[in-house]
């Protein structure tokens, strides 16, 4: 390629638009007969896979009868091949990562890379699919949908975590004419939708519902969803082509063909054209009913792209697309667009023709527009000669553009993109991407794809061009190198890898080591792991290399509990319990993590661990919890319904673990207090059981000691209270408080007064007064108790506090406390009658003291 001839000659007008059919490659393959093959082509210029189509009769000419799956680049170069020894193949498809999905009739999905190597991940669509078998299937980059012979639809919408999901039942009575899928990323709901064409309608099925839409009077035989998921093209039995909005709410166009039968293939060309393909004839229908027809030599496979459709045939690989506007502007015969004039001016300039200046002047005002058009046209053109010419024209224009009228770096960026595109289009690489496709794919994804295609050098160069770190490319290269270098000894290979990878600090050596291990080079894996600085990366691999101790140490050192658990579970599974315990014994963090897990999940195991480690208080704690839970649930069930006394059995269930806890706590010197307390706890529960039996009130078990005493007193059972008090050696003072609070909370003021009157309480009067106030005792009661205080200063304060200012003042006068008197005065205000009285008292006081 390298001409500067206008491409317009090869354009076909279709309505007011132009379309071009451009030959991308002459296929490098030989002897391929697409007509007898089942073919799947990955989008965005990805690889092609094919296998013999077992529904078509072919002449077997010796050799194995097992089908061979072959993969090719877009240029027809063989990438890989493998013999398929599974069952009937129901479908072929490419994932977004350009791995090949092979769907077996049993619902088993196998994944191969583009080089024909089987990948470890595979999954099944489940029992139902296996039993029924597959009638129809649709595969796309990130999922697949199958229709079983039992007319059930199953979908997987995320290949990372394949989880077969049964969609709503379409309620089919017979096999649908055809099936199509709207990918989740294109639907409003974000979930997959399946279109099924029946005799009378189209059924749209998603996870929750199946809705029927009548779209045509005759059955739909072919369906195709546009690349952006917005439209769906339908071909009916009466030879009409219909385009509907993909939710089937609106018909956009209708085109009648005179075809007898449906096309072999129906595909979108970009998002505004539909292409139909019969045996030797191809028809393209534009959005306004304009059409073009093409004759074709051999069977062709249509591959829709976002801006066109690729046509793969036995000999050639072509791209049919709408000619981008920028190219039309420049090259349409007679065009006077700025782009065309600028291009012309440059041609004149190169020919040393002075008219160049004149032409340039004629577009002066729209020069930036002309530059932009030429740059875009260069991006859109496949021919490198014309790309150069267009870029030159653009540069010529740039020189005369006012500053700031052009986006900076525009031409530079386009040159870079063109270098990338041209490199990709080389037949040796075979990725015929257009600029819009590359932009949609993004350079990051492109790099990943190149890496998968083992084009490491190209990937590395593109990565460095866009400022992406080289680590991913290098790591993949290292893995590929390891796979391919079986004959190089471990240390030599390590040195070779280390040399190339040295400059890059972000390399994840663990991944490379994992790969080395996976291909059976354990020694190399261990060596490579030495380079890894991140514990999180090392741990899983160390585990699989059988170095658990090192793994545990690393996991604990990095403080990631999740990682530590990973190692612990692996260790626990692998080793006999005593060994396991010995391993974690010395590592407190490991121990406490495992204990935390066990205390939730495996209490018996935890007990074993505690005992083995000599931590009886741990077991004691578990017993305590047991007793508490039982006690709580007992009182819970009682509070709900009728109050029933706790049975002897129920009581024993609580006390037994407590006694055990007491024993266990007793085994260590540091837990004497706990041991005694646990024993006391058991005694308390038993004592409460007895009280319930005696009194016939089911209201003791579960209370604290203080509350038990209060309950006895509340029931008027002084004898029981005394007994409990003695048994648990409750001090006089404490018991007095309990009595007082019981009387106060049950507002038994008479009893309280009687109690106070009997003899001075050991806790003084203040708590009584406080309790009176807190529980709303009548002021007279409180006052009478206050009256008993002997210290007159305190007495006066208390009077004042409950608002008995007169008494307060008098008492204060008695103790000659003029400071307090002033305060009281402030409280009541000097002007009030009380205030006056207080003033008098104060005056009297000051006179007497004088």
């Amino acid at each position: 390629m390298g001409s500067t001839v206008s491409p317009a000659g090869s354009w076909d007008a279709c309505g007011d638009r132009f379309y071009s059919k451009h030959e991308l490659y002459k296929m490098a393959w030989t002897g391929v007969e697409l007509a007898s093959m089942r073919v799947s082509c990955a989008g965005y210029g990805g690889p092609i896979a094919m296998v013999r189509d077992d529904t078509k009769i072919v002449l077997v000419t010796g050799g194995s009868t097992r089908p061979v799956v072959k993969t090719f680049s877009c240029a027809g170069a063989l990438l890989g091949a493998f013999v398929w020894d599974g069952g009937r193949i129901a479908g072929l498809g490419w994932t977004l990562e350009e791995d090949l999905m092979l769907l077996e009739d049993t619902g088993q999905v196998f994944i191969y890379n583009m080089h024909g190597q089987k990948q470890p991940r595979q999954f099944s669509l489940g029992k139902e699919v296996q039993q029924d078998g597959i009638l129809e299937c649709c595969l796309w980059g990130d999922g697949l949908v199958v229709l079983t012979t039992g007319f059930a639809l199953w979908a997987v919408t995320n290949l990372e975590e394949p989880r077969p999901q049964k969609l709503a039942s379409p309620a089919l009575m017979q096999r649908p004419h055809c099936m199509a899928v709207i990918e989740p990323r294109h639907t409003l709901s974000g979930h997959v939708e399946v279109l099924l064409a029946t005799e009378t309608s189209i059924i749209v099925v998603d996870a929750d519902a199946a809705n029927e839409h009548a779209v045509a009077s005759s059955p739909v035989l072919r369906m195709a969803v546009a690349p952006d998921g917005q439209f769906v093209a339908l071909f009916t039995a009466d030879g009409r082509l219909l385009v509907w909005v993909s939710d089937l709410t609106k018909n956009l166009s209708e085109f009648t063909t005179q075809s007898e039968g449906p096309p072999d293939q129906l595909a979108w060309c970009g998002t505004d054209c539909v292409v139909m393909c019969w045996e030797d004839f191809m028809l393209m229908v534009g959005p306004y009913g304009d059409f073009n027809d093409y004759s074709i030599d051999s069977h062709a496979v249509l591959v829709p792209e976002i801006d066109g459709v690729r046509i793969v045939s036995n000999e050639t690989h072509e791209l049919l697309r709408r000619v981008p506007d920028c190219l039309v502007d420049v090259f349409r015969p007679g065009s006077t667009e700025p782009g065309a004039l600028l291009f012309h001016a440059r041609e004149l300039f190169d020919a040393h023709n002075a008219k160049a200046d004149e032409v340039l002047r004629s577009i002066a005002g729209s020069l930036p527009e002309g530059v932009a058009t030429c740059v875009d046209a260069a991006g859109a053109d496949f021919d490198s000669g014309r790309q150069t010419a267009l870029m030159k024209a653009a540069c010529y224009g740039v020189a005369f553009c006012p500053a700031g009228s052009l986006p900076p770096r525009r031409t530079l960026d386009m040159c870079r993109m063109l270098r990338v595109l041209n490199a990709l289009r080389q037949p040796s690489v075979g990725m015929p991407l257009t600029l819009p496709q590359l932009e949609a794919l993004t350079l990051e994804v492109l790099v990943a794809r190149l890496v998968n295609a083992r084009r490491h050098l190209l990937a590395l160069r593109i990565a460095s061009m866009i400022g992406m770190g080289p680590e991913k490319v290098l790591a993949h290269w290292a893995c590929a190198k390891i796979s391919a270098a079986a004959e190089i000894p471990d240390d030599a290979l390590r040195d070779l890898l280390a040399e190339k990878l040295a400059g890059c600090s972000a390399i994840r050596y663990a991944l490379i080591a994992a790969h080395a291990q996976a291909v059976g080079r354990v020694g190399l894996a261990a060596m490579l792991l030495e380079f890894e600085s991140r514990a999180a990366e090392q741990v899983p691999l160390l585990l699989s290399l059988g170095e658990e101790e090192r793994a545990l140490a690393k996991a604990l050192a990095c403080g990631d509990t999740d990682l530590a658990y990973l190692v612990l579970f692996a260790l626990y599974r692998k080793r006999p319990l005593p060994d396991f315990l010995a391993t974690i014994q010395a590592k407190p963090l490991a121990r406490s993590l495992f204990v935390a897990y066990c205390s939730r999940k495996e209490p018996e195991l935890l007990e074993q661990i505690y005992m083995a480690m000599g931590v009886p208080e741990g077991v004691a704690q578990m017993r305590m919890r047991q007793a508490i839970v039982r006690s709580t649930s007992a009182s819970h069930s009682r509070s709900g319904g009728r109050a029933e006394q706790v049975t002897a059995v129920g009581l024993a269930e609580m006390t037994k673990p407590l006694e055990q806890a007491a024993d266990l706590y007793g085994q260590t010197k540091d837990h004497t207090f706990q041991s005694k307390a646990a024993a006391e706890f058991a005694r308390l529960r038993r004592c409460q059981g007895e009280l319930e039996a005696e009194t016939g009130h089911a209201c003791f078990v579960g209370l604290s000691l203080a509350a038990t005493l209060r309950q006895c007193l509340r029931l008027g059972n002084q004898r029981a209270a005394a007994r409990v008090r003695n048994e648990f050696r409750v001090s006089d003072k404490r018991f007095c408080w309990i009595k007082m609070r019981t009387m106060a909370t049950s507002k038994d003021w008479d009893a309280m007064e009687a109690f106070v009157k009997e003899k001075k309480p050991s806790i003084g009067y203040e708590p009584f007064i406080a309790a009176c106030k807190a529980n709303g005792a009548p002021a007279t009661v409180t006052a009478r108790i206050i009256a008993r205080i002997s210290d007159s200063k305190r007495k006066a304060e208390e009077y004042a506090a409950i608002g008995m200012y007169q008494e307060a003042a008098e008492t204060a006068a008695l103790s000659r406390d003029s400071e307090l008197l002033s305060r009281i005065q402030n409280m009541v205000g000097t002007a009030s009658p009380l205030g006056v009285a207080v003033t008098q008292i104060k005056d009297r006081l000051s006179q007497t003291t004088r």
Partner: protein
Amino acid sequence: MATPLPNFDEGSVPLAQIRDEARKLLIDALDSRRGKKVLVLDPKISGFLGMLAEVPLLKEHGVEQLLHLGSEPFGDLGCRSVIYLVRSRIENAQLIAQQVKASNRQGAQLEYSVFFLPRRTIVCEKVFEEEGVTGDVIIGEYPLDFIPFDYDVLSLEQDTACKELAHLGTIPAVKGKGTAAAAVLDMLSRMRKEPGADAGPGSGAIDMLVLLDREVDCVTPLCTQLTYEGLADEVLRIRNGCVQLDQGGSKTRIVLNSADRVFRDLRDLSFAAVGPQLGARAKMLQSDYKDTKAAERSLSELKEFAAQLKTLPHITRHINLAEQISRQIGAQNFRDRVTVEQAVLDGHGTDASCEAIEEMMYGEEELMGVLRLMCLISLTQGGVPKKQFDALRKEVLHTYGHEHILTLTSLQDAGLLRRQEGGKSSFGALKRALKLLVDDIDDKNPTDVAYTFSGYAPISIRLVEAAVKAGGWGALEEVFKLLPGPHFDVVQTTDENGMPVERSTRNKPVPGLDSKKRLVVLVMFIGGVTFAEIAALRFLSTQPNVNCDFVVATTKLINGSTLLESFVDETVQQAMKQAKLE
């Protein structure tokens, strides 16, 4: 009522980003299942979820019902999708497994998605595997870590994980004290070495990071906070930025954050200064009102006045709140508690204090209040005196139930409570070295952070204060020996190969402290922070000799009671709840 959210954009670091990101992640999680769905929440999450997304937003994304996590099977839900949003804890995974199994047994045709917060863990997956529900649930994660509580407060609302500090970019200077602090530094430096990390010096919005492990200063949370916000938390419990106010039998919810201008001005004041302030504001409004009537003012002045009037409901609200607080702190038991606290901090009359604590138990005051004082004595006096240790513990059991054997034991295991074994407590030396006790605090015009605890300056804040003042931590060598855990003072930078490294800057002044630009200092409290400490930091940044603004990050907002409650065994908590019901 929609919760007014604080304006996250006005702080030194735009926290709105974090909130918006969290909200987007939540919506993504909800949208992962189509149609109507039931959202099942871990109760620990539902509180702060309200700070991210309001109920209508959830409705918009198909949430028909909100449930709390439980193990009972679902009845008729009216839809097929169930989304769990729970912390990745073993017990949560277990509850989910039980619920899924129970529902499946009843023949419910449901689809379960579980989103673990902040990430899915191997342990939880293991639980699902063992319970045999791995095939029934779709596991995802909701990588929410920091929750912005206010324009300068971030909380992880959980116990561990400081990973997200790395999102804030590389912080040039890092100081820290305590075991967990050292672990975080270790983690940070490891993360800087990971691919994709931004290793260059000074790439973030933050100039200095101070990491403090709560173990360094357990004394402070045990003391009663005496700022407005602190007291509101002490007596009414601030939960997820709100308090419930009981007014004449009807409960009202008051949102407390900086969106409320009145609160913003008052929150950090000593409570003693709040009443007069509120009064003054109300009066000013009143007099303005009169003036406006008397003379016809210009429109712009009227507008200003109208804007001020808008704060009137806020003022009334705060008058109510302050009234409630002052009623509670006026009560004898509150006053007694503070008296004991002061005596303990002073180091006088331990015997009398123990006696007072005993009496509190006789009066059956709240257990946490009692335990706070016991722990405070233990921490400041080098343990509880021998003769009272057993008596106090015994009385706890007798009054509050023997279940608390477990509580006491775990407090002892944590070192918060122990028997005096001779030897002097380091608190006395600490008190002198850091000037923890400050006399003559003017509550209304404070000059020292000690106003936040009425004369006691938090150890934590004194450490931060030293860190940001000229001289740095160099002068504190002796003090650090008295506090637990290692300490460090490093600069995060890169070596000649561009690899991230840490260099010690011990005893050198902090770079940029003397510069004109105000520094942004992130103070990370690992193990929780109190409102009074946050107030103290805000106060500190207003001081003339401090040239920086603080952003506070923490694992949890705490006070002494919530801190100690975390030591109460779950079974005991259940028992306490049951006892309350009866």
